């Protein structure tokens, strides 16, 4: 019983969720989220990791 009812309920819930997401623009301007991990402290375009012995703002260091 539980098995049969869930085989019906689950896909229906999934489709409803997908429809709701599309309705509410969950998939709109996704690429803005890609930028959400950057901010003024660590802006786009700045490397944030280097070897400890590499001089602070040097170009390539020893491999």
């Amino acid at each position, binding site marked *: 019983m539980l098995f049969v009812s869930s085989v019906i309920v689950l896909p229906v819930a999934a489709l409803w969720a997908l429809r709701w*997401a*599309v*309705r509410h*623009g*969950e*998939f*709109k*301007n*996704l*690429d803005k989220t890609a930028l959400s991990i950057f901010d003024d402290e660590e802006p786009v375009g700045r490397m944030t990791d280097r070897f400890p012995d590499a001089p602070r703002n040097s170009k390539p260091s020893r491999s």
Partner: protein
Amino acid sequence: MNSDPHAKPPTPTGGVADLATADPREHIEPGEAQRPMTMSYVLFLCAFFAWGGYYTQRYSADYGALSYDENAGIGSGKVVAAKPVDPYVLGKRLFENVCAKCHQPDGLGLPGQYPPLVGSEWAQAAGPARMIRIALDGLQGPVTVKGLAFNNNMTPHRDALNDQQIAAILTYVRTQKEWGHKASPVAPEEVAAIRAKTKDRAALGSWTAAELLALPEHEPKP
């Protein structure tokens, strides 16, 4: 230094993008508005889903609880005849996986524990009658092989091996090339005959060497 890190594909500024955001009620395809999903990618997805459905339906043997063979319903119908295997080869396989555990892969056995088969007078007897009985119901008590005394229990293989397997093993041991054995091969029928004749032997326990030596080497024709 190569050029700008990576050219971002041009996002459609006017046209489709604005329209989509302007009127939320209209049903919009996810992701379509901003950056068209490359068609090859969509085909890549569809191909997989199609194959998945086909494979599941074909190899699930209609989802039976007791159907283990995925090709059950699909087989071409004709039963492919099992190609006959040369008894020597079959015997070698079974010897290595069953008998070699005690008689050792080289057939020399373990001194004082398990008798050797190489050059053993039991293995080179003219007729296989005694060997078949040993293979079927085992051997107990003292026995001398190549002049060496052994006193161990050989376990019965009556229900472990069928007639064809016992015949194959005995054929292999009796005609082993590297050991230079040149005795006669054994036919499954011979094993079947003796198995029938000695079917209540299992209850009486394994043979003793004395009993076997009293029996003729060749099984008398009924």
